[in-house]
């Protein structure tokens, strides 16, 4: 019982941290995008205002049970991956379940939520939602290949599938994996562009085209939960990258600096890019990113 309370407490603390950092990043994204496009842009805390507004709004309609449950599904992915990904080196301050799952579990739990949400989106009957979902799934089949190649390369090089072990390797050797396995890092970062769904890979939400895709029929509480899940998940993914490739972090400030540095990559790449078509996006991931993934596997297998 005590153990369960301990982990629940850890989950709540990490959730709050991830939520605030994630929402701030989203706000900064809007601000930076605006400055690049020579606009003034909203304040960096605009997304906090949005979230509070959404949560206090009254929802008046729903399209059925599945749509009602959709946001809860997406939240499962965010929270459980946050629980499995170690936040700081040595499991400090944020007790979590990382010793009970590994990278392959993480890969699969990451698709649990999107699939559940896709079902919710499907029940609304809005054609844009379904189109967005098919695009999202197609793109996922694209970027998972370089991403898994990078992970497999790390797994075979260090003979472990556990995230904590990979972090320990970096702490012991004092060398970040992004330098000792550069190809894996390249492939993983290129896959990350697809994961964050910023341009040119924003085919799922596709502003001006699909009317925000799978989200289109959700408002109020539903959108509130989805937005928070998105922010938490963004932070969880960035933390995973930091853990695996950048030696983890000893305290929160270092973590925030490192994650923000990583977050700039998809953000800045996105601001300056137009949008791909679905098949172009899928093929892009099977091109250079997968080639680097292959190099990473070769490097791990041969050296």
């Amino acid at each position, binding site marked *: 019982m005590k153990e369960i309370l301990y982990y629940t407490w850890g989950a709540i603390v990490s959730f709050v941290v991830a939520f605030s950092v994630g929402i701030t990043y989203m706000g900064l994204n809007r601000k930076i995008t605006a400055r690049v496009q020579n606009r003034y842009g909203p304040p960096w805390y605009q997304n906090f205002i949005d979230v509070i507004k959404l949560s206090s709004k009254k929802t008046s309609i729903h399209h059925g049970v599945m749509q009602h449950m959709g946001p809860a599904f997406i939240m499962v992915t965010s929270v459980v991956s946050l629980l499995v990904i170690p936040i700081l080196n040595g499991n400090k301050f944020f007790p979590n379940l990382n010793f*009970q799952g590994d990278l392959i579990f993480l890969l699969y739990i990451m698709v649990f939520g999107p699939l559940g949400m896709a079902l919710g989106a499907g029940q609304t009957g809005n054609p844009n939602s379904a189109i967005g979902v098919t695009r999202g799934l197609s793109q996922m*089949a694209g970027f998972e290949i370089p991403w898994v190649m990078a992970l497999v390369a790390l797994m075979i090089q260090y003979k472990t599938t556990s995230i904590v072990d990979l972090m320990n390797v970096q702490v012991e050797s004092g060398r970040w994996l992004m330098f000792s396995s550069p190809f894996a890092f390249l492939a993983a970062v290129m896959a990350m562009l697809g994961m964050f769904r910023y341009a040119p890979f924003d085919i799922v939400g596709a502003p001006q085209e699909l009317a925000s895709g799978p989200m*289109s029929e959700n408002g109020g509480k539903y959108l509130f939960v989805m937005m928070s899940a998105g922010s938490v998940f963004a932070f969880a993914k960035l933390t995973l990258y930091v853990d695996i490739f950048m030696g983890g972090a000893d305290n929160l400030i270092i973590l925030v600096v490192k994650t923000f540095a990583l977050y700039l990559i998809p953000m800045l790449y996105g601001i300056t890019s137009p949008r791909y078509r679905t098949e172009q996006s899928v093929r892009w991931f099977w091109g250079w990113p997968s080639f680097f993934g292959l190099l990473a596997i070769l490097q791990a297998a041969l050296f």
Partner: protein
Amino acid sequence: MNMIYILFSLMFGGAILTFLAHKVSGLLRDILFVLTILASTVLFYTKIHTGDAVDFSISGLPLQWGINAYGRIFSLIVLGLGVMASFYSVSYMKGKERLGYFYFNFLISLISMMGILMSHDLVSFFIFWEMMTWSSYFIVIYNGKHVQRSGINYILFSALGAYAMLMAIVMVYAHTQSLMIQDMMQAFPFFPVAYKVWLPILFLTAFGVKAAMMPLHVWAPDAYSDSPMAYTSVFSGALSKMGIYGMIIVFVTMVNYLPDDTWFRETIAWLGAITAIMGTLWAIAQDDARKLLAWSSVAQLGYIITGVAVGTPLAMLSALFLSVMHALFKGTLFMAVGAIEKQTGTTKFNEVTGLIRKMPWTFISSLLAIIALAGIPPLGGFVGKWMLYESLINSNHYILVIAIFFASTSAFLYCYKFLFGFFLGQEEKEWEQVKEAPALMVLPMLIMATLLLVFGVFPGIVLNPIDLGMQTLGFSTTAGTFWSMSGLFNEWGNQVMLQPLVYAIGGTFLFFLILLTVKGFKETRYVTTKDISSSGEVPLEHENLTFSEGFYQPFLRAVWPVMKRRMMSYYQGFGQGMEAFFDYLRRVYSGNGQTYAIYVLVFVVILLLFKNSLFG
């Protein structure tokens, strides 16, 4: 009398009685059909123990039937799925024609599968194997749909496999003078090298046909989708596993003793991976749920074949675990398609949409089965997938694991298509009157879907008999090293403890569901799927905006270069080539008496001309 005799006489007697009872009364026939399967299942699990065997001989050939722990794993699939499918078919087949014929063949195919598992000699193995082929063939052509394409293809490939197996059996007998499988296994290390190479190839051809391994898979999509769904759940879930059953024996007892077994294993493992990839891609391209599931069965068997071929203890565990899981989820899904077919009369995604509120129980069981198929935790499919990846990574198959991962990620696409196509999307007037399927059809689906959840959290329940079976095959026990009741471990000592993770998943889900429901569901009202804001326009009553035509067109455009080459077209090319060849031969055998007279004349002239040089 020995219990094994009683079991077989019970099953055969039941089959014949069911067939005869069809003439008397429909109710009696249904009861006899279900009772036969139930009684033999109960008999099998209570009275027949691991290690039991009977010896007898027919015209001097010593034969032996018995059951070992390895066969028992597959008997779980055959009888478990058989019981579920028998209840289901009683309701599904109601009102159809020639039910005596259908039930008789259904029972015969169950008997033959049990016979295969219980044969300890090659002759009964072969006979039961042929019985299985024929009884399933009769059900494939039962509907009378595409008899030419699906029926002929199926029987042709099965015959190819059977001849290969017969040849291998004759080779074994010529060399050992014995037909016992045990003797063959013991003598195999001392066979000449040519035998050592050819025997596994011949046996794998036979088993590969049933397991629908590339390039022997072309019969499967048509045969699976054309037989009645009540039987397809058994066909794809249990009957195809007989191929896996044989393959594992071949790999454990023969391939291990090959002088250089690496190339052999790699070839089969890659064939399995290619099967998985191509099966998945073709499943994505289908617009008919039966075809989609049929291709998906081909793909899922591909994973299992890869696991078997890699052959490390963890890979073997994963292959056997996936076999059990595949039987459960694919059985459920085929049953769900059958339920929808029965209630709406169609299985096409672009004809029927929005059934979720009409058939909620079918939806829930399909949802669980799809989650398991996709390999998403916390359901059973994840356990099998996890073990497969870990075993491939641990045994240095780096590119193979990427291939398998690609197949499994792309599987999400057709998984979503299945659920969306039938249950989600806009609700239509046309399907307003659809009711949930009868309880007899829904219950088996729900039971199997629940089992998937249970096995996903406590895989030890299934892994325990699998472990016993693997010990029969000569593996050392894997309990504790690779798995515990609800934990999984790989060779590097990494672990996944399922229980805490499942509690985390369930807890988070419930918390946010309650959060949404307390404030949300009460104050919101339900609106129909026509009440949407699609770019500010509200669709009219008769406008159907469901997106189902060309669902994954962009994705298919991206992968089209791979899909352009179809195995079927090569076979067709081969067939056309043969036809042209025989057409050419027909010019010689023209059927015209005068032509033949000329042939005779020419022959005689030649004889006379060369008389001296020929006969000296």
